[in-house]
């Protein structure tokens, strides 16, 4: 997998440069809305829409933006897509929109989006920018859904609203509260690093 190839730019977001586990960006929605699987999933869909839109837009207009005003331009582009996503959710999925609360409008200041615009889309072609956006969003999505599974399972005894643990299971309320989010995320980041180190070691031994 070479840097710059479609496959590389897609898969880097999922693992090697995962926005949550490696770059540790977008912590605010990650910690706040990963209390249930559905919320995490809906949130990452909104991020996918915004990131894809803003990466495409920034990549298209990258040659005409004077570098002095590139940040205001990125912010305008991003907030436009965020507002569209927010209005759409409120019109079509009022329940999900209510559950996500202020975190959809807050995508505007989500570092993942602005970081991808600044570090990637403003320097690359349209195709690679789109691939990068989809890869990063899926990387964001699987971490949020996994966090949602852990927190919802331990906090409510259910997964995506379906009860899987019986009445014998006392729900751990703390998992739904901020401490549960920090603890679960910390464990995930630690696990990821552990896997990376052991993979590196094995590679080192083979060569």
């Amino acid at each position, binding site marked *: 997998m070479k840097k710059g190839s479609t496959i590389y730019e897609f898969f880097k977001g999922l693992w090697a440069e995962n926005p949550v586990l490696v770059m540790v960006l977008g912590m605010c929605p990650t910690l706040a809305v990963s*209390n249930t699987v559905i919320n995490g999933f809906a949130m990452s869909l909104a991020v996918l829409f915004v990131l894809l839109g803003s990466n495409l837009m920034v990549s298209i*207009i990258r040659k*005409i*933006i*004077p570098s*002095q*005003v590139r940040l*205001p*331009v990125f912010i*305008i*582009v991003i*907030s*436009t897509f965020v*507002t*569209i996503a927010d*209005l*759409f959710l*409120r*019109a*079509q999925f*009022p329940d999900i929109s*209510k559950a996500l609360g202020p975190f959809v409008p807050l995508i505007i200041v989500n570092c993942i989006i602005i970081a991808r615009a600044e570090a990637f889309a403003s320097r690359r072609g349209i195709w690679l920018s789109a691939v990068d956006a989809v890869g990063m969003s899926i990387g964001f999505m699987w971490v949020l859904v996994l966090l949602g599974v852990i927190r919802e399972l331990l*906090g409510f005894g259910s997964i995506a609203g379906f009860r899987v643990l019986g009445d014998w299971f006392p*729900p751990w*309320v703390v998992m*739904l*509260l901020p401490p549960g989010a920090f603890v679960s995320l910390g464990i995930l980041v630690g696990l990821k690093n552990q896997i990376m180190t052991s993979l590196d070691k094995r590679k080192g031994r083979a060569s």
Partner: protein
Amino acid sequence: MKLAFRMITVLTGIGLFAGGSLALTYNATIKKIEDNERKAKELAAREVIPGATKVEETVIDRACSYFRGYDDAGNLVGYAVLNAEPGFQGNIKLIFGVTPDFKHATGLIVLDNVETPGLGNRIVEEPWRAQFTGLELPGEAVKGAKSKDNQIVAVTGATISSRAVVRIVNDGLAKFQEALK
């Protein structure tokens, strides 16, 4: 000079484009959004007024409004009051039904809250809310067991949230009676 001109043109262009697409989206969605909000409120109002099939809203102030509930024949069967005030962590928005003589509540639904999951937000659960059906108004929240008809038992570990709900109901009732005069 040339650079300044380019910066202004680009920013203006982007701004116009953004404004235009937002205006289009807003126009396409705003009706549906308002519909959703109205439907959610009216559904809750019909639920807390027993026998009501049609409700009419009258706004009192920004946080508070009341609904008249009518049955199929067009008779007034009760009122519902919507009120929002601070709870333990943030605003609690709720709607409750009132009998036509204002003496009893006929049900309660919590529409919005950010109380602690598992403790304070148990105010949304059916067994606790059911205490408001037939409750004498104005109410009072007590710990342990109730001794009077106007008392409800607070959620264990969430006395503040429970008291807040009762306070919001009482304040809403006062505003509603004031508005009717």
